[in-house]
């Protein structure tokens, strides 16, 4: 098992290198930051000086290598726009995004699995059919539209919930949390529904179809023939087998939630890293963009690693064969 994990970590590191390279080289073509940083009255000498200062005069591999070297130490350079260390800015912004993503992810997983199991067990029930039809809306409406609809209903018309921002936050160590204040929690509701809805419907539909497949298996029939309770058959026997393929997708979807946060954060002016990224793109703030992409890929890769390790605990067939079987 240890060897397996080490192998996966090495693979993950390789993936990060490639992502870093892609991100880094891509940014060379999005525009020249010098244009934004210097005003109209710039001289050729100014430009040259700044270029040198930022290291932009060096060759591409040298720039990339330096970037990696610094990044490994948690140093992503200075933001061109804000003139502060990127790491500091990210640390400031990350809690907002992570809290939003965590709440959305939890909603998506809990309701996705619950609805998926329900609609599979009560396959022909009225409520199950209703949920299935309603879920089509979640899959087909674009995220920003859902966000705007929710704002229109709950903020504009009903006035129950705030339409933008994070509410009040509390500092705990270096982490600013909105989970401990009433306004913070209220502010979290609409964005997390907006962000989690698509993933929830996806997980629900997947759980449902996998569960229906599992319920057709011989071992479920045999479990019934042994007179086990429906509860044990549905949750102990069927759900566990359903989760094997579902976990992979859930892992990928959690990564997607963090990535999709960009849209939700823009709609709700949520002060997270997604909004930071959008602003950075407008300004061609390369260090911020690069750091953001690296952060996102670290999360993707980390989640994948966790998923792979989870498999070990769920599926005995992946563990080392004790008896050899056949």
């Amino acid at each position, binding site marked *: 098992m240890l060897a397996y994990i080490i192998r996966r970590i090495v693979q993950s590191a390789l993936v990060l290198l490639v992502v870093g390279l892609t991100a880094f080289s891509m940014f060379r073509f999005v525009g020249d930051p010098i244009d934004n940083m210097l005003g109209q009255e710039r001289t050729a000498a100014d430009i040259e000086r700044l270029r040198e200062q930022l290291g932009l005069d060096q060759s591409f591999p040298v720039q990339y290598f330096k970037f990696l070297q610094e990044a490994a130490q948690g140093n992503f350079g200075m933001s061109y726009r804000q003139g502060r260390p990127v790491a500091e800015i990210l640390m400031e912004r990350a809690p907002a995004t992570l809290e939003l993503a965590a709440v959305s992810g939890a909603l998506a997983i809990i309701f996705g699995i619950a609805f998926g199991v329900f609609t599979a067990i009560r396959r022909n029930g009225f409520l199950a059919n209703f949920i299935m039809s309603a879920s089509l809306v979640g899959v087909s409406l674009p995220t920003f539209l859902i966000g705007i609809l929710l704002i229109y209903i709950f903020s504009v018309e009903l006035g129950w919930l705030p339409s933008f921002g994070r509410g009040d936050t509390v500092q705990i160590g270096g982490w600013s949390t909105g989970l401990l204040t009433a306004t913070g929690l209220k502010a979290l509701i609409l964005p997390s529904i907006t962000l989690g809805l698509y993933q929830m419907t996806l997980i629900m539909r997947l759980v449902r179809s996998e569960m229906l497949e599992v319920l057709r298996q011989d071992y479920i*029939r045999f479990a019934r*023939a042994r007179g086990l309770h429906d509860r044990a058959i549905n949750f102990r026997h069927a759900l566990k087998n359903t989760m094997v393929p579902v976990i992979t997708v859930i892992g990928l979807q959690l990564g997607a939630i963090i990535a999709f946060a960009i849209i939700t954060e823009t709609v709700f002016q949520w002060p997270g890293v997604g909004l930071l990224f959008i602003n950075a793109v407008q300004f061609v703030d390369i260090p911020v963009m690069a750091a953001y992409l690296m952060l996102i890929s670290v999360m993707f890769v980390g989640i994948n690693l966790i998923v792979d390790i989870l498999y070990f605990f769920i599926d005995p067939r992946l563990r080392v064969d004790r*008896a050899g079987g056949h």
Partner: protein
Amino acid sequence: MSDTVLSIRELSVEIPTHTGIVKPVDGVSYDICAGEILGIVGESGAGKSMAGNAVIGLLSPPAHIAAGEIWLNGSRIDALEGEDMRRLRGKQIGMVFQDPLTSLNPLLSIGDQLTETMLTHLDISRGEADRRAIAALEEVGIPGAAERIDSYPHEFSGGMRQRVVIALALCAEPSLIIADEPTTALDVSVQAQIIALLKRLCRDRGTAVMLITHDMGVIAEAADRVGVMYAGRLVELGAVRDVLTAPQHPYTHGLMASTPLASQGKARLHQIEGAMPRLNKVPEGCPFHPRCAYARDKCRVAPGPKIADGRTACWFPLVAEKAS
């Protein structure tokens, strides 16, 4: 007989389809006594599994019991539903399926699957269940049962898994076992062992067994009596020795002649002309008459006598020398 465990009376199973109602089981009656093994044979699609599933209440809709009665240890069970039926399964009726590779849940250890079955039906403690699980594995001949109790199904070979399945079917001490082709999916070399195991365990405990199979060899080896099914009907029922050596129904006769066991020494296997009718096109009268060499006018109009009155549902049972 007083120790009759299972009694099926005029059982019919129906499936509504687009083209009309089909009857995979049609007016079947038989009894199985404690400690007795009743073999059920017949070609594929004859309704053997349907009859077994009807008894344990596991017909998959839209198939349902349309008529007849099923009695288990003196109580009628064909109308039981939900919880009442669930309590019977495993506790009073055990079932062994064809494919041991797919019958066990791959994610649960065999010990867990055994104990959960016992704890569902028996009023015993967790520790007692663990102890009995090991004993059950020992009984079905799993070497090193105590060490292997936490193993997962994939760590066993096919034959060993079928032993585990049998242990599972028997662990709550049911009075009836329905074994639906328990050896068909297994290697020829282990088939005989599994049949011998099933036979020994059921003899020891006095469990009644419905042994569904295609294999006349299995019947000859294990069963006390045998019932022959054709197109949903029971066409012959009797002691194994009688039915195998002197079949009275022309279909049984053809079936015997077409298996290697009965035709040992003969130049080649006999084959019954034609094919079993599709269930939506079962002919009038005796369902076998279009393929029967001895069919007469009566066979074409009247469905054959009730088997309860004799050994066979044939109007003109073969006598020994005709069947030679």
